């Protein structure tokens, strides 16, 4: 260590003593020999181990091919599972052999002397920077437009380039939303006189079928004949529940919407649209499994817990002349999750 070097390390020494202000880097430690470096027998052993690992890979791949031809998926759950297992294990060993072999090779046999490479600052040299600026200036001068001037050319170019993407964006956006008729959110296919049917079989439901404590999953009768059955089902699914009329608290205007303790509510959660589905018979609560919004069927399906804000819309029902349950009309509000213009 000479004086020239130490000038970099020693700074203000208030005490005038011998110590530098901070410890110095001790430098890269000495190389420690591995077993395979010192002992040729160990090196040979390591080489055999690597070769064995590569051989394991070959065995694995052969196993995979055997399983492919000899153990097809078949018809039963067990045979499919076996085929998957054998193929997968073959592949695993085929891969593992190569991976472990390569790494073991690197660790035991390849040179493990640490090397040092210098870093250079990321910043390009002053000369390069000056050169870059010079060539840019040259190019700008060649372009026929004064550098730094807000010219007519620049403005026109920017305007043109900014506007051009519209010829791609407008047809893309214009067509991507189908007919863009968001008014469809407000209506479902329920109409006066449309029968309530079981989901998924489609058979109509009589009022006498619905016993206290039961829940029916309901679709409109004849749903299959709609133009887009799934789209309509996504709005029209309903839950049908019968309560003891003494347990049912109805507001005066909705008293006519139920029939003899049977109430029908939209199945689509008013939070973000999952099917509400879980009916707890004893508490008359409907629980949505997605985010746990809980609705009280005995009290107009109002929200009693969870992230939903609005009660489930109620479908007004009655019975027809044969005793089948029918809707009186469509829902009186848009079903499902809220959206900006929902109440407009």
């Amino acid at each position: 260590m000479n004086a020239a070097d130490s000038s970099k390390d020693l700074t203000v020494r208030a005490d005038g003593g011998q110590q530098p202000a901070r410890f110095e880097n001790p430098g890269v430690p000495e190389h420690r020999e591995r077993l395979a470096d010192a002992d040729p027998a160990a090196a040979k052993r390591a080489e055999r181990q690597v070769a064995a690992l590569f051989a394991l890979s070959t065995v694995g791949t052969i196993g995979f091919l055997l399983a492919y031809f000899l153990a097809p998926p078949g018809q039963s759950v067990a045979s499919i599972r076996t085929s998957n297992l054998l193929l997968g294990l073959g592949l695993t060993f085929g891969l593992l052999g190569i991976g472990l072999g390569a790494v073991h090779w690197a660790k035991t046999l390849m040179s493990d002397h640490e090397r040092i490479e210098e870093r250079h600052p990321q910043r390009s040299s002053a000369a390069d920077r000056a050169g870059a600026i010079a060539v840019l200036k040259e190019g700008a001068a060649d372009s026929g437009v004064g550098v730094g001037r807000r010219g007519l050319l620049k403005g026109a170019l920017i305007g043109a380039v900014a506007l051009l993407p519209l010829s791609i964006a407008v047809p893309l956006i214009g067509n991507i939303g189908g007919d863009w008729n968001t008014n469809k959110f407000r209506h479902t296919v329920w109409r006066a006189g449309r029968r309530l049917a079981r989901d998924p079989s489609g058979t109509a439901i009589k009022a006498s079928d619905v016993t206290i404590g039961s829940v029916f999953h309901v679709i409109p009768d004849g749903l299959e004949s709609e133009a887009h059955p799934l789209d309509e089902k996504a709005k029209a699914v309903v839950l049908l529940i019968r309560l003891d009329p003494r347990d049912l608290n109805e507001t005066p205007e909705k008293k006519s919407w139920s029939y003899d303790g049977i109430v029908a509510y939209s199945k689509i959660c008013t939070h973000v649209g999952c099917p509400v589905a879980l009916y707890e018979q004893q508490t008359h609560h409907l629980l949505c499994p997605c985010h746990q919004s809980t609705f009280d069927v005995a009290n107009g399906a109002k929200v009693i817990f969870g992230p939903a804000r609005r009660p489930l819309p109620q479908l007004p029902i009655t019975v027809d002349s044969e005793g089948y349950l029918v809707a009186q009309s469509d829902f009186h509000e848009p079903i499902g999750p809220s959206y900006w213009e929902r109440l407009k």
Partner: protein
Amino acid sequence: MKARAARRYHRFAPVALLLGALLAVGAGYAALTDGPAAAAAPTADDIAAGSQLFRANCATCHGPSASGSRNAPSLIGVGAAAVDFQVGTGRMPMHANGPQAPAKPVQFDQQQISQLAAYVASLGAGPAVPTAEQVDAALGNPANGMALFRTNCAMCHNAVGGGGALSQGKYAPALWQTTPSHIFEAMLTGPQSMPVFSNANLSDQEKRDVIAYLVAQREGSPGGADLGSLGPVSEGLWVWVVGLGLLIGAAVWVGAKSS
């Protein structure tokens, strides 16, 4: 010391003795208790026996005439099916009053359950215990069963019957161990929080299809071990713990200085 005497002092002697004693007690108990009773039409004796069992085990909550009380509903008209289910799965007698009746070790043998069922059935007409044919999974259509299960049951019991949460600590239990007749009875009678699936909602044939579906699920998953069939949460936990765990282990090995 003689060889046999020496063996008494062997260090495994107490273990062997304990195992032998357990074996003896177990065998004795099995020999002395009754086997499952054969199904037969209930006789007047059965109803009388059932009435006695009822008074001893059920009347405190359900009332001496099974007409209910503040703590428990009336059992008039619930039928033999309800009793067979509730008592047969150990749910009744309940340990503590509450909306969830968890299944626990069954307190009565099959004959006693049949007697209780006969007694309750005699109080008022109600759903009967299903016949073997009604719950035979081999006669059901598992594809139709799955469609019905998906619409009516999966939201509480999960897609394959692995169980799920209800509100306030209640839950719909896993169905892996439930017997076909108990499944049938549960659908028919709507125990505790579960809705009632009467024959007007799910016909006998449809109930059998559901049973066929649930029994088929017990074969396991074609993709391998099913991690509890709990869905993406257990899969995510597994990839962090096992997948990333194995790979970090491998990475430590790759990066470590070799000897």
